[in-house]
């Protein structure tokens, strides 16, 4: 893996931890950004590269769990690895259930950390891909006219053309034309594909 295109974010209020982890990860050719508080991390302008976050739980003001929550709120999908000097099993379960990749006790070996980072980055890849796709689909949906959008919704639910026609009170032919345009704009070759696209974009329920 070409590590130079990835950033590992390190958040720990202990300067030694930040510095030593920075040196360690840089020796593995990662790009590293360190912060001594959650606020500093959130304020940083994140470039759009593959990344993951290594964070302590005990932090000033906003602790690790609060940071995890905030990131979820703001739609930041960077995977989190928690490192801590005082963890216990209930805490680790809580962290993992909230979506953390791993929960490592200090002190840890470089091997342990790198394993978790590898895991986190592969997850990040998947998440980024999903996010990009979703954005693209939403872009295409934005190009649909109101009528086309309606038809899209009905088709996404699995309704047949003639039923849509009855429902909308228009002719079957009109519906067929609309559907054709929708397929074109959405770049779907089959109806099944269209339904998948709808699901990926998060449009599954009807909106009459």
């Amino acid at each position, binding site marked *: 893996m070409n590590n130079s295109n990835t950033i590992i974010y390190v958040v720990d209020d202990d300067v*030694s931890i930040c*510095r*030593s982890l920075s*040196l*360690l990860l840089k020796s593995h050719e990662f790009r590293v950004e360190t912060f001594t508080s959650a606020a500093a991390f959130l304020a940083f302008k994140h470039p759009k590269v593959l990344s993951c976050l290594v964070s302590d739980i005990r932090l000033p003001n906003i602790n690790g769990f609060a940071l995890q929550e905030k990131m979820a709120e703001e739609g930041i999908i960077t995977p989190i690895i928690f490192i801590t*000097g005082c963890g216990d099993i209930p805490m680790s*379960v809580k962290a993992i259930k909230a979506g953390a990749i791993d929960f490592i006790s200090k002190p840890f070996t470089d091997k342990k950390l790198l394993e978790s980072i590898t*895991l986190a980055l592969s997850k990040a890849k998947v998440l980024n891909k999903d996010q990009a796709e979703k954005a693209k689909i939403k872009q295409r949906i934005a190009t649909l006219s109101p009528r086309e959008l309606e038809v899209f919704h009905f088709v996404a639910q699995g309704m047949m053309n003639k039923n849509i026609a009855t429902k909308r009170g228009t002719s079957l032919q009109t519906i067929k034309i609309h559907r054709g345009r929708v397929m074109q704009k959405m770049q779907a070759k089959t109806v099944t594909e269209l339904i998948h696209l709808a699901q990926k974009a998060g449009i599954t329920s009807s909106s009459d």
Partner: protein
Amino acid sequence: MKKKIIVNPKKVSKVIKKSAVKKITRINLEDKIRRQTNAIRIRDGQLKQGEDREKLGADRERLGADREKVAEEQIHIQTKAMDSASDGIFIIGAKKFNFPIIYANTSFQILTGYTKNEVMGQDYFLIYGVDADLRVVEEIKVTLRQGRPFHGEMLNFRKNGKKFWSSLRITPVRDARGIVTHFVGIQTDTTLMKQRNLEIEEQREELLHVTRVGKLAEFVSSLAHEISQPLTAILAYAQAAQRILAGREPQLQEILQYIINDDQRAAEVIRRLRYLLKKNKPTFESIDINVLINDTVTLIMPHITAKNITINFKLDNKIPLIHGDRIQLQQVLLNLISNSIEAMESMDGQRELMISTLSKSADMVLVEVKDSGYGIPAENMKKLFSHFFTSKTDGLGMGLSISRSIIEAHGGRLDAKNNADHGATFYFTIPINMKNANEQ
């Protein structure tokens, strides 16, 4: 106190006249008697003929009557006082061979549960029923027969059989010749006080323990946390340096490795300290071991899939609930599963993890964690569960010995064996929750 009073005769007659006019109140009665006594004494010395002697006699009689009244009153007050006392007071006769009760105040009656009528004239020792401590009763008897005072605290039983603690003091009463004629006893109910003292003692113990353990635990916990920071940093620095020097400077590499080893040794100490301080007494509850296994696997799932390990379950859904500490058992499961994962690390072939549960006997459940690794070498088998044994290059070796302690504390056994085909199985037994079993 009898003072010699030198009185001016003139003044005395004035006083007598005055007191005759004044209303005599109770308080003044004694004064009156005193004065009159003095007056009569003086008059005796100055005796006149005839009518004076008669008057003297009458005065004497009146004085006698007043004296009686005061004496009666004093007795009345004293009796009332004894009866009002919150302690039990009783008087027993000492002349006969048995010790008859001749007085028992209200509190004594309430304390013992016997009424005045029931005890008056009765042998004092009849109060002590069958349940009383015979040794103490004998001791009291012997002490009283020797005319000596008794003091002790004992467990008593009321007439209705109810228990109470009392402090008992029986003191001899002697006549003018010094012979013991009676005993007076004071009995105080100390049940409440004893209970309170016990509670206070318990609370103090608990507080001391909690403070000692709590403060210590807190202190060590924060110490452990503080120390783990530089330990982490040192480890990371050394490992970073190792990487940078990869393939060069063998001597520096060696030194760096020593730094890493010692750092890990320190980390182990901290880990052990932390473990020791965690309240080692497991908090038991009813646990569905299958659910616990599922939860634990969920926790570690990312690692399982990342290592291309297939995990299979053979969980018997008919096994009863087990009796255990959820957190500690989860620790054991995590330890065994991650050990198995490590064991299959360098395997090229099929990586399979199999977790199974089944009823071992009427009161035990068996849990097995089976891997398809290389198995455990014969020479390691014996040392497997000892504190610092590890075959991993950067492992710490604490897991299995702690796991074994936990399982043993639960009343089960943890052991390992090599599989017939390949790999090893770690297995442990756990007692089922007997209470539930009986209810099922």
